[in-house]
């Protein structure tokens, strides 16, 4: 028997379920082959893990883990919003930027001061800018408007400068990906406006040329 033949049977050999004749042939080879002897030891160790019976996941664990995951992601989104608000946008010269909005969380209706962020676009490639809209409850019929100026285009829209539509936002994070390409050397600006009967929010994103 060759090493390849032993390799094909080694998990069954480790589990003790290989027929006797094949087992004997394998063991004869292994007695004279250090590599296969090591492999058998490795296979036996893996079998020990596989054979170990474990308890089922406790009741409620799935829901708890899902909740914790959502909370961890929300913390990340809030952290990103803080970085942007603190003016660290320039350091985030990556192809992806998340901008978090909070809708339906304002104490009183009205327009908040616009937040400002930076995103780096390129003439060489389309880059996806992710906008995360964070809602503390379902927001049916939220109005989303995008105004674009300067030498930047939204992929698929050519020179169109304004887009506006209504959307039913769900509670939690709602994400919008905007594929952007620079068409000149001066960059541009994007204004995103979110409005709902309860609140309205503006966000200005400076679109800078990478490099």
């Amino acid at each position, binding site marked *: 028997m060759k*090493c390849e033949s032993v390799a094909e049977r080694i998990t069954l050999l480790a589990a003790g379920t290989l027929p006797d004749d094949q087992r004997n042939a394998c063991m004869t080879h292994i007695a004279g082959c250090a590599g296969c002897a090591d492999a058998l030891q*490795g296979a036996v160790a893996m079998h020990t893990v596989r054979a170990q019976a474990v308890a089922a996941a406790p009741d409620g664990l799935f829901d708890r883990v899902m909740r914790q*995951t959502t909370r961890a992601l929300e913390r990340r989104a809030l952290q990103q919003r803080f970085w942007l608000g603190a003016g660290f946008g320039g350091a985030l010269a990556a192809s992806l930027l998340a901008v978090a909005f909070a809708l339906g969380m304002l104490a009183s209706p009205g327009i908040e001061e616009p937040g400002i962020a930076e995103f780096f676009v390129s003439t060489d490639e389309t880059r996806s800018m992710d906008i995360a809209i964070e809602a503390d409850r379902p927001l049916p019929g939220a109005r*989303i408007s995008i105004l674009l100026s300067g030498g930047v285009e939204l992929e698929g829209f050519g020179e169109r400068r304004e887009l506006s539509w209504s959307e039913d936002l*769900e509670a939690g994070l709602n994400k919008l990906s905007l*594929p952007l390409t620079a068409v000149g050397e001066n960059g541009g600006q994007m204004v995103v406006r979110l409005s709902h009967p309860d609140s309205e929010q503006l966000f200005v994103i400076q679109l800078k040329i990478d490099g």
Partner: protein
Amino acid sequence: MGKVAGMKWRRSDTNRFTALMRPHFDALYATALRLSLSAADAEDLVQDVCLKAHLHIDELENVEFQRAWLLKVLYHRFIDIQRARERSPVDMAETGAESSDPESIARDGLQPDELVEREIRLRTLGRAMGILNSEDSSLLALRDIEGFSLEELHQLTGLSTGTIKSRLHRTRSKLGRLLSNAAIHKPVLTVIGGKK
């Protein structure tokens, strides 16, 4: 918002993610428990996997073998934890934090001394997996622990089945050599029943 061509809109990911994870959760937890030997560590491990999966939800939705993808993430994370523990100046065994949870791990008819021996063997295996290349180590685990077929591993990794076979055999040999090597057999004080 699909009405606006060229833009990709995704609804709140929570429901989508929950539906995606539910069918695989028990299998992930079982593997996490087999590897970590403690319910608390297993929960932390699956939590880490869920976070990573959520951040790559689009990729996960589009892979053919989602469970294999998730388990691969879990093994990588387990290996990272093993490596961090190796670097840590604190010997977890001495703290009692690295001890099995008898309510979660079946005794399989073993006597207490046999249970201790099995736990030491499993801990040593964990350390050995931390020394091996992560990709090789997780490939071997997916085959030998999870029982994925060569064809499934081919779909997951893009490697030819011939390459997978030879890599598996080589990794088993390395693992066996490591397990024979006294250097990774740290003296371990094992406390059966200790809780984190």
